[in-house]
């Protein structure tokens, strides 16, 4: 196959003709897909999610169970109500769960070393796990629950209001005493909210543990504090084209004696590792170089960090929250990467090795951490503690697609 053929993405729109407005060499084309077209999934029906939301929006994708990651999503595509389909992510998956304990009892790399998707660890869900939803099966094994649920206001403006819904897909993997609920929330406005809920039982609550490393529990035991650091690998292929996505850092920098804020955008041209900076409202967006919305603004999706806790351990991959790398299939895990390609590094900092990312297929890695200090209410059984972040449309549409 030629290199040019590689530009056409697998999840194609067929049927209605593309509406292309060529406004001159320097002006990119408008959204190139039509609302009523059928999607040509790159998977068989058993592995498709093809969901129309209550407001008419659509989420479509393929899924795959893999031993390490559990559920991997492919070709994630959003269609606003009455609008045009746009592919957002070529591939999306959790890429590590790192659990170091405060007493250094253990430092677990749960995803790569134990495998969220193995038959030993992936739960066969029951109807009770999935109230008001549909179980998604592989053969006779219920690997996921799919539910559309109310999500509160879509908007409220005096007497005008709209109600939002969200499509929730989740699987559950038990690793040791923990059960991880790996969830993807797809909102009807195009927002994607990846989340992981940690529930089950405490893994380290011995009477012999150092009380300065945790919290006293019943029976003289110490619930040892620990981190849950989650890393996602997000292969954006905005509008189905993979060599024209650009990653930018957005920030609001204090100026004029901290009375004003200068809003900045910085485009990355080489692979990069970046930290969260809540004090300057740092976020990142992946924009398409060519596709514009009806206002003439580049379509993009913005990564909004969740920075409640920040963890810096001795491991190099904990030194940053965001990594932007040139796409390589064999760079799959943020740590303990399966080194299936000759010379492939062991963890994501090694993937950042100075390669240019302009006009290259890029992958964004995002990590967030939660320090769990046990409490009596964790027994028995533990409430899920959730960690996640948001990927929101920025200028995907010229106006709010959920308002009439």
């Amino acid at each position, binding site marked *: *196959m030629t*290199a040019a*053929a*590689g530009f*056409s993405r*697998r999840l194609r729109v067929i049927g209605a003709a593309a509406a292309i407005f060529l406004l001159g060499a320097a002006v990119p084309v408008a959204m190139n897909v039509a609302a009523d077209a059928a999607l040509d*999934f*790159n*998977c*068989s029906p*058993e*592995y498709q999610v093809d969901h129309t939301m209550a407001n008419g929006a659509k989420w479509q994708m*393929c899924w*795959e*169970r*893999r*031993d*390490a990651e559990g559920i*991997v999503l*492919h*070709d994630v595509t959003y269609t606003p109500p009455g609008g045009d389909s746009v592919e957002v992510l070529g591939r999306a998956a959790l890429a590590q769960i790192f659990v170091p304990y405060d*007493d*250094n*009892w*253990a*430092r*677990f*790399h749960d995803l790569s*070393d*134990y*495998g969220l*998707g*193995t*038959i*030993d660890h992936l739960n066969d869900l029951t109807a009770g796990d999935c109230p008001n939803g549909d179980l998604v099966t*592989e*053969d*006779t*094994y219920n*690997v996921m629950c799919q539910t559309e649920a109310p999500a509160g206001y879509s908007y409220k403006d005096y007497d005008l209001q709209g109600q939002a819904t969200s499509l929730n897909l989740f699987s559950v993997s038990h*690793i*040791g*005493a923990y059960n991880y609920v790996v969830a993807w929330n797809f909102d009807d406005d195009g927002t994607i909210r990846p989340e992981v809920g940690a529930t089950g*039982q*405490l*893994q380290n609550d*011995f*009477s*012999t543990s150092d009380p300065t490393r945790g919290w006293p529990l019943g029976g003289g035991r110490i619930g040892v504090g620990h981190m849950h650091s989650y890393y996602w690998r997000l292969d954006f292929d905005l509008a189905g084209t*993979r060599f024209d996505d650009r990653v930018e850092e957005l920030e609001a920098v204090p100026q004029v004696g901290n009375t004003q804020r200068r809003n900045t955008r910085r485009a990355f041209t080489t692979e990069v590792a970046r930290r969260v900076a809540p004090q300057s409202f740092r976020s990142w967006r992946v924009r398409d170089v060519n596709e514009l919305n009806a206002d003439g603004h580049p379509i993009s999706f913005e990564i909004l960090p969740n920075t409640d806790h920040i963890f810096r351990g*001795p491991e190099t991959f904990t030194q940053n929250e965001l990594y932007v790398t040139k*796409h390589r*299939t064999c760079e799959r895990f943020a740590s*303990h990467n*399966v*080194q*299936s390609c000759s010379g492939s590094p*062991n963890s994501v900092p090694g993937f950042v090795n100075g390669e240019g990312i302009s006009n290259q*297929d890029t992958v964004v890695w995002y990590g967030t951490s939660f320090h769990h200090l046990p409490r009596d209410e964790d027994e*028995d059984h533990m409430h899920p503690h959730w960690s996640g972040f948001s990927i929101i449309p920025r200028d995907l549409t010229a106006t709010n697609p959920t308002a009439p």
Partner: protein
Amino acid sequence: MPHLTRRAWTGVGLVVAGIAALGVTIAGAQTDDAVRGTDPLSADETETALGLARGSNPGEAIGLGDDDLVLLIERHEENKDVAEDGLRRADVYVYSYDDDVLTLSIVDVATGEVDQSRVVPNTQLPLIPEESERAQELATDDPATRRALATAYRQATGRDLTDPATEIEVQPIVFRADANSATRGPATTCGRHRCAQLFITTTDDLLVDLTPIIDLSTGRVVSRTGSFS
């Protein structure tokens, strides 16, 4: 180092049993006619890959020795440039307990050809059920570990451990020494060797403060407590 205990459990029979537990039982509901794109390997595709791994096609076979264990057969994720061509290949990961080497072979399940085969360094895939069972057997066979378990069980419950089969549950997981810089002693070989760490709870959900580490490559318990803090 002699590996006298391994041949007893890493024969072809266990290789086949290992495959049966690798997810084949929850994959491949569809016929091969329907398989496409990012679908996981079908049962037929997995069987084809397994056949090659077992050497049923001598001209193209990966070739398994008695000390080899198939750890994983999974759809090969193709580079995007070729993904649209409908190529369906399998990653077959084989661990050689003879020399502690993990090999990846990429098998074209349509043509039956092994396209590539290479050593995968510094990687420990998750344990398969046969390895988990073997780790528990080795721990059970070690008198000192049994005594340590009895003590830890009494400490956790106030009771004597009389019937481990009904009183405790064990979750073995793969252990790498480099996951924790505090690791010391014989367990530092884990990672170069294939090791399992056992997490033990009582059947009424109390944690037992004992996480022994078993070197599956040598068949020895390398840490009875599993704690280096």
